[in-house]
């Protein structure tokens, strides 16, 4: 289905619903409906590569249109809200209600998303090099050998996608009883093209890094059906969800070369985005929410299935069966204390084929079982309302994660732990002055301990403190601020299989995260309002990095297997990574007269990140591996800025008009590939009935 046809159907459907709604409503209209309609024009100009400056704008000049309408009678209401910015950026939202017995929501929306095209063209600024050579002075015949080269099959293509959503929900209340039937349909279609970057794995001679265009036409359909009812002492909810995904474009193919007899030459498919489906059924019950004792229990059964259409690989069989059980028990004996017990259990079981054949692989390849996951979580939360102004809260949580099918031989390298036990303690306080409501303070401290952390995704020791406050000492100004600081500590023995056995490398890691946000608002003069916000985010990680995972020790070197370095593997200790982001924004509003308002706004974001490895390591008798240049290659230094000026004028009581100019800019201080800016000028006029 091409995009224009989908858009056409959606618009026609929206129109049809509106007409039906009016036909149903109008005969019974007994109150004046409200209607706001407006239109205008948006002129857009851009410079260089505007995709990152305005990630979700198509950057095309276009007429604009918006409409809000409420039409109704005593018993029926139709609400419509539409906004059209361009052919690829619009929304239609409508809700139709008949005495709250029948409620229908319709939403039709389209968004546009610019995507990057990383240049692979020789000679292009910031492009990858056309050929990467490696010259070994020690190995005969290994002079000036090309080790990697780059090619872009579609160098001039620009990439973007548009995403269209159609959502229809209906809720119907059964006559005479507090029970409902709910039906829902959601359709999500992404169309466009993106860059497919891949490598031809012929690394015995050279790695051929390639880029080509991959067309996108993906559709997700989701159907939901549920029934819920209040049955006296408890409520019952039964629901079913079906979702499927289809890639309507063929999986791209390319020609690949032979490698050492391990791979045959020939044409083969790229990794696809496999068609899949998901089904889920949930049963939930809960007691009255207004009681001092509230209990709820839910049970969800589900299944996800891979429905791959690959032709050059078989069999492709993968599915996940899962269930999730959740239960809460909340006890509030008085207005000062409450206790909540939360239980969660998740069980995910993967099933996939044991062996696979590919048109490019001469032998049948074994396939490991994917990891199964089981999680059991128990949480106890207690709150104590010390006074009308102050509440204290404490939380104790224990989570157990069990992974099955972990490769304990470590033949495929690092493995997550088979079992993790995480304990969390959290306490906090919330203060709010009730008399004048001008000061509130919220503070929380969290401590977590994990007996067997999964490296880099969890830690053995974790602390976090957060404080937020808002204060309004006078009617004319106020401040809000928040700060958060946390540190995670982890170490892990990374095990590698070496010819004489499994060998472990002890890796240490510490991660710190801090952020601070501050905002102030003020009305310094009668018709002037000012807002200023500043945010700072910092992530600092210190950890040991491993380079090389080769099993065999280097030939010609004396290597002790008990040493940390084992020939083709070495550790760079205490490598530091630092990421910092500063954000500033300011907004000024000036009521120039009773009818005219001026708006000014500015934004500035500066983000930097780099890591700093430091090592010298002799590899074979070949070359000295150094860290020189690694920090430069991985460094990020970005500046985003923007400004906006707008004016709103109420010409008459029911007629308004406005104009706005906005400018956004993206600048990378390390490379100019994605630098660009967008300027947008808009005028609009609206009438209110």
């Amino acid at each position, binding site marked *: 289905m091409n995009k224009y046809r989908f858009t056409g159907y959606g618009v026609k459907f929206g129109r049809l619903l509106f007409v039906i709604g009016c036909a149903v409503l109008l005969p019974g209209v007994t109150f004046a409906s409200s209607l706001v309609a407006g239109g205008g024009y948006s002129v857009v100009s851009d410079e260089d590569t505007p995709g990152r400056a305005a990630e979700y704008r198509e950057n095309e000049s276009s007429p604009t249109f918006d409409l809000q309408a409420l039409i109704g009678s005593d018993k029926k209401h139709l609400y419509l*809200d539409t906004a059209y910015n361009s052919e690829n950026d619009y929304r239609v*939202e409508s809700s139709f209600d008949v005495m709250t017995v029948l409620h229908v929501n319709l939403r039709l929306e389209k968004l546009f998303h610019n995507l990057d095209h990383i240049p692979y063209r020789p000679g292009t600024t910031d492009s990858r090099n056309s050929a990467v050579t490696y010259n070994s002075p020690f190995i005969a015949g290994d002079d000036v050998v090309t080790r990697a080269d780059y090619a872009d099959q579609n160098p001039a293509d620009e990439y973007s996608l548009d995403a269209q959503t159609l959502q229809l929900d209906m809720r119907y209340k059964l006559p005479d009883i507090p029970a409902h039937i709910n039906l829902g349909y959601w359709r999500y279609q992404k169309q466009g093209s993106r860059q497919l970057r891949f490598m031809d794995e012929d690394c015995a001679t050279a790695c051929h890094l390639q880029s080509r265009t991959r067309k996108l036409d993906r559709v997700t359909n989701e159907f939901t059906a549920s029934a819920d009812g209040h049955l006296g002492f408890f409520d019952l909810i039964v629901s079913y969800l079906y979702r499927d995904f289809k890639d309507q474009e063929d999986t791209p193919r390319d020609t690949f070369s032979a490698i050492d007899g*391990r791979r045959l030459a020939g044409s083969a498919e790229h990794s696809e985005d496999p068609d899949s489906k998901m089904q889920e059924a949930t049963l939930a019950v809960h007691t009255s929410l207004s009681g001092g004792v509230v209990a709820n229990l839910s049970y969800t059964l589900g299944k996800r299935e891979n429905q791959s259409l690959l032709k050059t690989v078989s069999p*492709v069989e993968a599915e996940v069966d899962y269930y999730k059980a959740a239960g809460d028990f909340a006890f509030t004996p008085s207005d000062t204390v409450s206790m909540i017990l939360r239980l969660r259990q998740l069980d995910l079981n993967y099933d996939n084929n044991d062996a696979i054949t590919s048109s490019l692989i001469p032998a049948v390849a074994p396939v490991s079982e994917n990891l199964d996951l089981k999680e059991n979580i128990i949480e106890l939360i207690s709150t104590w309302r010390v006074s009308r102004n102050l509440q204290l809260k404490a939380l104790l949580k224990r989570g157990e994660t069990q992974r099955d099918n972990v490769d304990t031989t470590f033949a495929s390298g690092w493995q997550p732990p088979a079992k993790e036990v995480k304990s969390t303690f959290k306490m906090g306080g919330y203060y709010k002055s009730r008399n004048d409501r001008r000061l509130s303070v919220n503070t929380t401290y969290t401590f977590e301990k994990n007996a067997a952390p999964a490296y880099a995704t969890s830690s053995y020791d974790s602390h976090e403190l957060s404080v937020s406050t808002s204060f309004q000492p006078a009617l004319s100004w106020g401040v809000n601020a928040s700060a958060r600081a946390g540190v995670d500590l982890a170490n892990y023995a990374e095990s590698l299989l070496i010819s004489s056995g499994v060998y472990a490398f002890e890796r240490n890691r510490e991660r710190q995260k801090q952020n601070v*946000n501050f905002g102030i608002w003020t009305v310094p003069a009668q018709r002037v309002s000012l807002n200023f916000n500043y945010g700072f985010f910092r992530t600092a990680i210190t950890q040991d990095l491993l380079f090389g995972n080769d099993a065999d020790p280097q030939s010609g070197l004396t290597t002790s297997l008990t040493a940390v370095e084992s020939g083709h593997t070495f550790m760079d200790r205490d490598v530091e990574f630092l*990421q910092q982001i500063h954000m500033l924004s300011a907004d000024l509003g000036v009521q120039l007269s009773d009818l005219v308002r001026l708006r000014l706004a500015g934004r500035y974001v500066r983000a930097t990140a780099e*890591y700093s490895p430091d090592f010298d390591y002799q590899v074979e008798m070949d*070359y000295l591996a150094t860290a020189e240049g690694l920090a430069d290659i991985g460094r990020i230094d970005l500046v985003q800025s923007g400004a906006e000026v707008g004016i709103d004028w109420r010409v008459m009581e029911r007629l308004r008009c406005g104009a706005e100019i906005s400018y956004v800019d993206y600048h990378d201080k390390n490379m100019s590939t994605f630098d660009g800016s967008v300027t947008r000028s808009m005028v609009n006029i609206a009438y209110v009935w």
Partner: protein
Amino acid sequence: MKKKLFLLLAVTALAALIPACSDLSSMRSDTPLLPVKEYERMIVGRLDADYVGNDACLAKCHAHDKIADDFHNSVHGAQVQVETGLPLVNCESCHGPGSLAIEKVQHDGDKCSSDRLLNLRNLPKQAQSLICLKCHSASSTPVLTYWSGSTHATSDVSCSDCHALHVGPQQKVSRQEMSELCFKCHQQVRMEFANFSHHPVPEHKVMCADCHNPHGTANDKMLKGATTRQVCTRCHMEYQGPFVYEHADLTENCSNCHTAHGSPNEPLLDVGQPFLCLQCHAGHLGGNNHSARGSLSSRSMKEAFFSRCTDCHSAIHGSDIPSKSGGTFIAR
């Protein structure tokens, strides 16, 4: 086994329906377990006041005409109709009996004694919520299933902190307004969305409630779905799989690598490549297996092997295609 258990629960629940359906009056009423007396007393209002009805209340004062009109056209207003079978909702349902408040109002323009109504703003948050829950417990509101144990409910947030019932006939928070509402408390999240790589929440194309249910869920951080992966793969279903070759169990929680609100690292990565991958995996080095020879020998080799790992390992979320080694190279 699991399917049998599910069927048993379903049959039990359905069996409970039969007697329940036969007693309409108990079905329609709210039956709280051990109600909290202190909160119940707070929301009753003045015991020496009587209910006077909307018309008696509003007819004396036209200052509330707009509020009354909006309420009349709202979902709550329709419930004044007896034939809906729903609990009655009018001004006094929330504000308490109004006879004392209008006692001294004789002419249009006279102010009512609002201090004789329920002082809603100064009630504890739990009592404020109870006013809403009294009706919403009896009328079957499945979105509130996990409310009592939710983060918001246990953090002193009440219904009226988010739902403003008198700003217009549309009483639910609209998609256009939702992010600003949430940002009032979650300032840090507002700033996160200012990064260039972000979900289009500031552009109002995605809203907070597309991923979170602020009333509570069975998942962490009030995310919808059984796992984090299921939240994300609703829109990004190309990564749902399941794949023959998975990226361990990492992809069951997308936030192992991604930060959903905003990041300076495309695409929404918590930390940029290659450091993101080096946190768990060893970097390339010369040798016989797995590592390209000479990958740390020169600047250009380092650019090839230590800039963006996904240039080669392009199917990083999982693949159905074996690599040349037959194992999980996750390329192509």
